[in-house]
């Protein structure tokens, strides 16, 4: 059965490793913070200027001067630091952030990503996404495999304006975990009960299917 958003977040959380600094995008990626595996230490960076971001505040504790990149009130953990936006993106461009998790509208089988602009629709802006995807060595995309019309969002070539070129490393969708390789999308895991056939039909780009494709473990 296809995963829900929480399950996608849960699966991505398994990619977290001890000592990782992680930047989480808005949407499904934000949920990843709820599923950090036991026994490992990670720190969350928010590009508006905090490292060591904690959970949302309790009522009465919220502070207008302490928000995340989604403009939500947050808290800070012991060992946290605040800094300006040049330092924040210095961390990102300088590859000091170990893992970036973000959403996408389309991903190509070369690792291109489109997630900021739909021609003809209102453009909100790329925020920090272009800096993040151009810089990180380790980018995981959390996205739906198909759009509401049932069309694949995993393409041979993105149709929307790009956010970044050849940058995505891994994709987790409601159907599968896929890596970007020189052969295109490599099917790594499938969601529990989802058939390879379903994934094949939902993937428009080049799909490499190994002999054995295990089901995701949570």
């Amino acid at each position, binding site marked *: 059965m296809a995963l829900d958003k929480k399950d996608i977040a849960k699966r991505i959380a398994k990619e977290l490793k001890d000592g990782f600094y992680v930047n989480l995008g808005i949407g499904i990626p934000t949920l990843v913070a709820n599923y950090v595996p036991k026994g490992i230490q990670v720190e969350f960076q928010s590009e508006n200027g905090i490292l060591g971001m904690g959970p949302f505040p309790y009522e009465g504790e919220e502070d207008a001067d302490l*928000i995340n990149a989604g403009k939500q009130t947050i808290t800070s953990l012991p060992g946290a630091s605040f800094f*300006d936006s040049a330092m924040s993106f210095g961390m990102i*461009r300088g590859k000091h952030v170990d893992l970036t998790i973000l959403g996408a509208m389309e991903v190509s089988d070369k690792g291109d990503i489109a997630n900021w602009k739909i021609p003809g629709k209102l453009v909100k*802006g790329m925020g920090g996404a272009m800096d993040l995807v151009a810089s990180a060595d380790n980018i995981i995309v959390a996205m739906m495999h198909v759009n509401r019309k049932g069309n694949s969002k995993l393409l041979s070539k993105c149709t929307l304006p790009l956010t970044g070129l050849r940058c995505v490393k891994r994709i987790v969708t409601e159907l599968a975990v896929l890596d970007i390789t020189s052969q295109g999308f490599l099917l790594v895991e499938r969601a529990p009960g989802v058939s390879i056939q379903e994934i094949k039909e939902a993937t428009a780009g080049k799909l490499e299917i190994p002999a054995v494709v295990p089901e995701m473990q949570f």
Partner: protein
Amino acid sequence: MINKTVHSVKEALEGVSSGMTLMLGGFGLCGIPENAISELVRLGSSDLTCISNNAGVDDFGLGLLLQQKQIKTMIASYVGENAEFEQQMLSGELEVILTPQGTLAEKCRAAQAGIPAFFTPAGFGTEVATGKENRSFHGKNYVMEEAYQADFAFVKAWKGDVTGNLIFKGTARNFNPLMCGAAKVTVAEVEELVPAGELDPNQIHVPGILVNRIFQGQDYEKRIEQRTLRNI
């Protein structure tokens, strides 16, 4: 000790006129120069180019300038919180230059630091790189970006002293320190203005040399855009 204090927001904005390019600190509504924005509304200067990470919301922050149609060009990384903005952009009244957030920050910092141009990977291979020099260093591709040139920078700090030294709090720091000294005139408003010598010289975020005018701000609303709470 060089004193940068001015005694009113009116005095602080002396010299602002229509057609100018302004930098405004803040991320969303966090750390925005509320007093300067109010005074810009009162002044009614028009045809402004505003460099700011966001464009406020309909009735607060830069949204107040948009309501009055004072902004001709908006340079920002994300403008999604504002219906008035959308309407003016779609009608063609408002020109919008979208810039990756890190590039926006670095272009301000470059202006502050006398760096005319630098290379960044952000936007390579996208429409943001169109018309800009692309170059490869050590096998990776980069885009050349130039420093901003602005007339006024308006920033908001938590504490400041009369020499213009500034200290920020939490994530209200964001773009504010980078815009200091990045324009011809830098105006800082602070929640608390203290005498010289009260701030620890080790803990100054922006040295006073980068600030031309400083004043005690008033009536800060510090509106929260997304009040998000944890259940007890």
